[in-house]
Structure formats: C-alpha cells, structure tokens
C-alpha cells in the first residue's frame, strides 16, 4: 500500500500478516474467501481449456483435433471440474464467506476453524481430481452412469470419485456453517425479513447442501463398492439395477442445480436495487420464492429420466412438479424487472452483469419449459438442446452473477477500484460471446445432434462452427477481467468505504474491512434495500 493508514484505524484483514503461512492458517472468513477465490479461478480456467478443446474438435464433423478417447476425457474433465470445483463452491464459498458475515453484522462465521477445514477439504478433493486428470483422466461423463462407470470404463474412476466425495464434505461443512451463522449471529434488530435477499439465498442453498450432498456421497461409495468389490448394486450382470444409480445420482444432482443458481439470484437481488436506487420489488415474495424453489428442487429429479424406463405415471408426476418449480423462478424475473420501474438506473459493470443474468436466466428458464414438457423432452433429452439449456442457467446465469458479484464486492474485498470502462466492455463481450456459443446449440439439439459426440453428421457443421466461434469470443471475454482485476490490485484507485452508496451493513465498515469486521457493533434494524431514487451515486 502506498498511502499510510490512519494511525487510529484497526489494520485491515489484508495486513494481518503477509506470509503464505498467515493465509493458509487463517480462521478469518474474509481470508478464507480469498483462498477460495484463487483456487476456484484456477479450476475455472482448467475447465475452460477443456471446453475450448471440445469446441475446437467440433469445428469439423470428422475427428481431427483429438481422438475419441481424449475427447471423452475432455468433456468429463470439463463437467466434473466446472460442476464440483467451480460452480458449486463459486458464489457460496467466495461471497458467502466474504459477505455473509459482514451483511448480518457478525465478526466471523459461527465456526471459523471448520471454515478453514472446509477449504482444505475442497483443495484436497481438487488435488485428487487433478491427479486423476494427470494420470490419464476419466471418461465416464460427469454423471458416472452405471454400468459403464462400474465395469466398462478403463479410466481413473475411483480417483475422481474420491475427489468429488471429499469436495462434497467441504460443501456439507460450509452449508452447516452458514446455517448456524444466520441463525445465531445476526446483528441486534435484524429479523428474518430484514435480511438481504443474498443472505436468504445462501441460507436456502446451505439447506440443500446439507440435505442433498450426503446422498451424493452414499451414491459414489456404492458405485466404488461395485467397481472395486463387485458387489451387485447397479450392474444387472451382478443382479443390480442401473436405473437405481440414476435415481440416486439425480436426487443429489438436480437440487445441485439450485445450489448453483440460488446464490446467483441472491447476487442479482443485491446489485439491481443498488444501481436502480430502489427497494427490491416484492421483498417477501422474493424471499418465499427462494424457499419455494429450494423445497420443490428436491422433488423433480425424475425429469432427467423420462426416456430411461421409469413408469409413465412417475414421469407425469415429475413433469408437473418441474412446471411447478418454474413458477417461483418466473416470479423472480418479474420482480427484478419491476424493481427497475421508477428507478434511477446507472450502468456500472456489476449492473450490466446483473441485467445480463436476468435476460439469460429468462432464456434458460423458458427452455426449461420445453424440457419439462414430456413429449418434447423425449426428442431433445441427451441432445445439444439440453446442453444449451443448462449452460444458459449455469454459465449465462451463475457465471454472469458470479462476475457481477466479483465487481460489486471487489472494492470491499481489495480496497481498490477496478477499471470501470474495461469492465463494461468485458461484460458486453461475454454477453455476446455467450449467446453466439450457446444459442446455436438449441437449434442443433432440436435438429437431433446428440451430446457427447466426438464426430457428427455433416448437416450439423454450420451451427457447430457458429458455436465454436462464439467460444473464441467468450474466451477473450473471460481473459479480460482476469487481467484488469489483477492490474487494479496495484494500480487501481483506492476504494472508499461505500463506493456504490449501497445500504447493506457490509458497506458500513472500511474497505478493506478490519480483521474483526466492525469497530462498533452495527445496528441491524434498518429495512433492507432502503434506497431512494434521488440519492444519487457519486461516481
């Protein structure tokens, strides 16, 4: 730091020791958030390289860039890394860790040591996954369907399973920590309906993490038992049932989709009111919608299995429940839109990301209706239509919101301002590149191109070229924030305590915050999002 700190101020958390050791043994939720931020960024770029190679291979119908076995390992690595090493921990572990305690006026999470253990579990699990990759990879797809994964695959299935299992425990402990923190450490006066919606979203996500992740752990252990000890669970040759695996896997993995999207909804609900200078529209509806989504998310897993051979009646129940989960999601889009009405809107980078999130989430949600419709799902399941749909939710939704959160809380986390014009340009490039990459995939899917295809019939080439060129634009878009954010750490302007004139408690402390967050215990009795259009932002 070039400017000396005022003698009276408590040292910021960034200045509480400079050695690597002081970071990797820190119990401070803010430092642990930074540890997560660094590690998930590394995983994001590893997963992105795999995606880049996939798109490169698919430029032509024939096999040329990589061979079939390599291709299968690439899409598996992409899926495993992006789901478990990036998306699931992304917003909860970085911004849940950094902002949650600050937003409710707490000095730290309820269990600081457990929090550090969570990061070690995450990093350890990640290393197993990387080791599996370096030893030759795994080729089952991130879904590990049996009996392919339990007997037929000659790749590092067990090593990858172990990695995912360990990362799962990190999720469980983090979720537990957040739940206890929200219950016990809210500032005086902060009732449940005074919580920022981000806190509601992280709370609901944590409940899913704690309830669903153990099922994943059990499923993976059963799969390992079949693979290693030949205990017949899923393999029909041993008397097992392959569909049982799918039920167990999706019982976790469908709620996991909401683990990835609920925090993103929370982020949008922070950013949009702040830059529209308006109270979020229908606060209580928004909070209840979050809870509604979390509950129904446990009851829709069978919509992944409409053609697998489950009974017609089961499929109908899962279909109608899948439509039900779309209702609270629709409410959220309506309310974000209504929040803009009579606002005083400024288009900072976080706001651009948040608006991009709403538009792309709307697209992903609408195509979700296609997939919930039984007869259409029969045609498009396991095609690129599904690939496009979940990328609109996961990348268009979650990653856009994650980047929005990075920019929104960057001044608070680092004490520096990022380069605003660069950030706006990057947001627009990412939005354009994303649509160019994934929109053609909807068309490809309805045309009938199956997913996980290394080669494809000639008629699919034009759309594949469009998609791959979009991926190139997207790659540039993702590199930009890495560069200008890194640059801002040294060259950025010093950030004021509340650069956005935002209302949350996290903005009442200094940027970056002191080790114990607040010099005085903050008052939590203010209404959330108490914005008025006339109180303009000083930029």
């Amino acid at each position, binding site marked *: 730091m070039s400017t000396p700190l005022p003698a009276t101020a408590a040292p910021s958390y960034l200045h509480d020791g400079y050695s690597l050791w002081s970071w990797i043994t820190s119990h401070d939720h803010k430092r642990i958030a930074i540890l997560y931020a660094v590690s998930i960024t590394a995983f994001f770029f590893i997963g992105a390289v795999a995606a880049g190679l996939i798109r490169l291979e698919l430029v032509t119908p024939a096999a040329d860039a990589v061979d079939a076995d390599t291709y299968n390992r690439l899409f598996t690595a992409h899926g495993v890394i992006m789901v478990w090493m990036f998306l699931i921990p992304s917003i909860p572990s970085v911004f849940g860790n950094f902002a949650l305690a600050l937003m409710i006026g707490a000095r730290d999470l309820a269990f600081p040591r457990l929090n550090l253990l969570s990061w070690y579990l995450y990093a350890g699990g990640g290393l197993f996954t990387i080791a599996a990759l370096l030893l030759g990879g795994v080729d089952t797809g991130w879904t590990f369907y049996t009996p392919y994964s339990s007997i037929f695959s000659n790749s590092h299935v067990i090593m990858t399973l172990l990695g995912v299992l360990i990362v799962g425990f990190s999720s469980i402990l983090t979720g537990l920590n957040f739940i206890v923190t929200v219950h016990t450490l809210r500032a005086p006066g902060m009732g449940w309906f005074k919580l920022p919606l981000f806190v509601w979203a992280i709370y609901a996500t944590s409940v899913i993490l704690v309830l669903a992740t153990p099922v994943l752990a059990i499923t993976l252990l059963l799969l390992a038992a079949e693979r290693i000890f030949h205990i017949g669970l899923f393999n029909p040759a041993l008397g097992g049932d392959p569909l049982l695996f799918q039920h167990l896997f999706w019982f976790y993995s469908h709620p996991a989709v909401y683990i990835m999207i609920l925090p993103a909804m929370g982020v949008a609900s922070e950013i949009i009111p702040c830059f529209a200078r308006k109270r979020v529209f229908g606060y209580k509806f928004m909070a209840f919608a979050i809870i509604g989504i979390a509950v129904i998310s446990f009851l829709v897993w069978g919509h992944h299995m409409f053609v697998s051979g489950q009974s017609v009646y089961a499929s109908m129940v899962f279909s109608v429940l899948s439509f039900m989960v779309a209702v609270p999601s629709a409410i959220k889009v309506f309310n974000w839109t209504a929040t803009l009405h009579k606002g005083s809107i400024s288009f900072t980078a976080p706001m651009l990301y948040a608006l991009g999130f709403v538009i792309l989430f*709307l697209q992903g949600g609408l195509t979700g209706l296609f997939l919930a419709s039984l007869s259409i799902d029969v*045609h498009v399941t396991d095609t690129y239509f599904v690939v496009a749909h979940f990328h609109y939710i996961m990348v268009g939704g979650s990653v856009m919101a994650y980047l929005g959160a990075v920019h929104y809380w960057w001044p608070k986390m680092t004490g520096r301002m990022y380069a605003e014009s660069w950030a706006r340009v990057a947001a627009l490039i990412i939005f354009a590149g994303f649509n160019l990459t994934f929109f053609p995939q909807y068309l490809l899917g309805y045309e009938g191109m199956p997913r996980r295809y290394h080669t494809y019939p000639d*008629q699919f080439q034009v759309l594949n070229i469009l998609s791959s060129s979009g991926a190139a634009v997207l790659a540039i878009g993702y590199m930009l924030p890495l560069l200008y954010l890194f640059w801002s750490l040294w060259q950025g302007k010093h950030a004021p305590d509340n650069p956005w004139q935002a209302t949350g408690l996290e903005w009442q402390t200094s940027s970056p915050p002191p080790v114990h967050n607040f010099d005085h215990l903050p008052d939590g009795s203010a209404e959330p999002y108490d914005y008025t259009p006339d109180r303009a932002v000083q930029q």
Partner: protein
Amino acid sequence: MSAGLTLLPPSASAAARGTDALFLTLVGLSALLTCIFVGLIVIFCYRYRRSARINRDNPPSHARGLEAAWTIAPLLLFLVLFAWAARDYAVQSRPPKDAMQIFVVAKQWMWKAEQPNGRREINEIHIPVNTPVKLIMTSQDVIHSLFVPAFRNKRDVVPGRYSTIWFLADRAGEYLLLCAEYCGTDHAEMKGRVIAMQPEDYARWLEDGATHPGLAERGFRLFREHGCMGCHAAASTVHAPELSGLLGRRVHLSDGRNLIADENYVHDSIMEPQKDVVAGYDPIMPSFKGQLDEEEIMAIIEYIRALNPDQTTGERR
C-alpha cells in the same frame, strides 16, 4: 438440410409432427415472453436512466394483486402445457397391440436388429410405412439409447431388461438412427439408418434375405440344444411349467406374488431362475447365465411366443 439452418429436422410420423406443433407453440410463447420482458427491461433502463429528468415519485415497493396475478397466470399456463405434452407422451409410451415386432440388441458400438422372419441387420432397421412397428430392445453391455430424430422419439436400451419404442412411419425414406446415451469410446460412431419402405417393397426385401431360419425356428433349435425340453416338454417326467401361451398370461409365484408374463419375466427366468419361481413348482431350474447371449434369449422368447396355447412345448409349428 444442407445449410443446417432449418428450424425443424425432417419428420416421418404423425407423432413427430405433433411434437413439432407443441415445440413451435412453445417457441412462439417464449418469443412473446422474451419480447415483453427484455422489452420492459430496455424501456425501464432507458426511461429511468440516472440522467433522465422524469417523475419518480411514489415508486411501488410491492403490489399484492399484481404479484398474485403473475403467480397464478404462469401456473395455469404451465398446467395446460403439461397436459398437452403428457397426452402425447402417453400415446408414445403405449405401443398398439397389433404392432409388428422387431428385436434390437445394442452393444458397444453397433445396433443389431432381427426381423420377424429371422433376417438380421447391423446398423440398419428396415420397416414398412403405415404399419405400427414396435422395437423390443436390450443391451449386451452398457446403457445405450435408440434415437430417431425423424420420429422425435428415443428410448434408453438398458442391459438386463427389455425396453420398447414404437412408431408409425408415414413417409418412405432413410432416417438417421443415433445412440443418444453416452456408451464409451465410439459412442459417436454408433450410428445407422432406419429405412422406411412401402409395404410391398418391404415384403420383397424381407423375402430376399430369408436365407436364415426364422427367429422362432432358431429359438426352437436353441431350446432343444440347451436341453430345455428335458423338463419343459409335455412328455417330460420332470415337473416344470408349461410354456405354451405363456406371454401375456398371469403367473402366480410361490411367494404369493403374481405378474403378467412379459419378455422381461422370461428373460429373468432363464438367467436368474430363482427370482420368480412359479407356484407349485420346485426351484430346480439351473441358470443359463454365460451360456446364452441376448440375441439367443430373444430367439427363445420368440419361440415361446409362437407356441399356440393349444400346442404343447416341444412341438414344431
């Protein structure tokens, strides 16, 4: 097609056009909703931009009536969509009773089909148009999924059980046949063709290839070679269930359960005879696991199906 930019792939059945109708309705609905919401976002962002001088008095923070309306309206719309799609799905899931049957065995990485008269094909399935065709499918190894985009239909092909898919092609032609469930190294090469022909062409084609014995004929031979007749023949001294007219019959089991005998039941009875023992019989049947492959079991099932209820096991048709 060559441009690759058509919205809809070729269709070859009424069911496919039904799916397209719902799909296009949803495309229209999505376009409308996108226009409304993206339009509103753009309008609000322009009208209420920071520098605009505009009346911002009394901004609403909530509106119970409006919120209730936009909760209930999508709910009702979604229920209509559900009912429409579910009706089509129910039709797709239930093959007509008179459907012609073709057996399909999937294995890494090929499709093997066996026509009713025993003509065998690899990566091709010939079918007559304007005739309901039911495929009875199983897998020799991992899960595959039979996908014909022109019929807008697919079905997982799972080892250890039979799954069925049916269609009624109404346009002659060649259609892409794909594997849609990831099944290992050459998943993307597990492609083939469905060739829909006029019934008379199909009949001619079928006759051309009738050099092999029919499927039931082959089943009879296997039935004899594997010694099944030693117990199941009417004249046998061993007490074993009579098999004629078995498929579709209600079977009472020794543990009190009862079921309708279908292909899965016969398959399991051959491979895992202790699983469903018929009431009144001793569990003495040995397992034929490892001795019969999926295609052979299908042939035996076809032989059993071909036995009339008034015939006894062991007789030739």
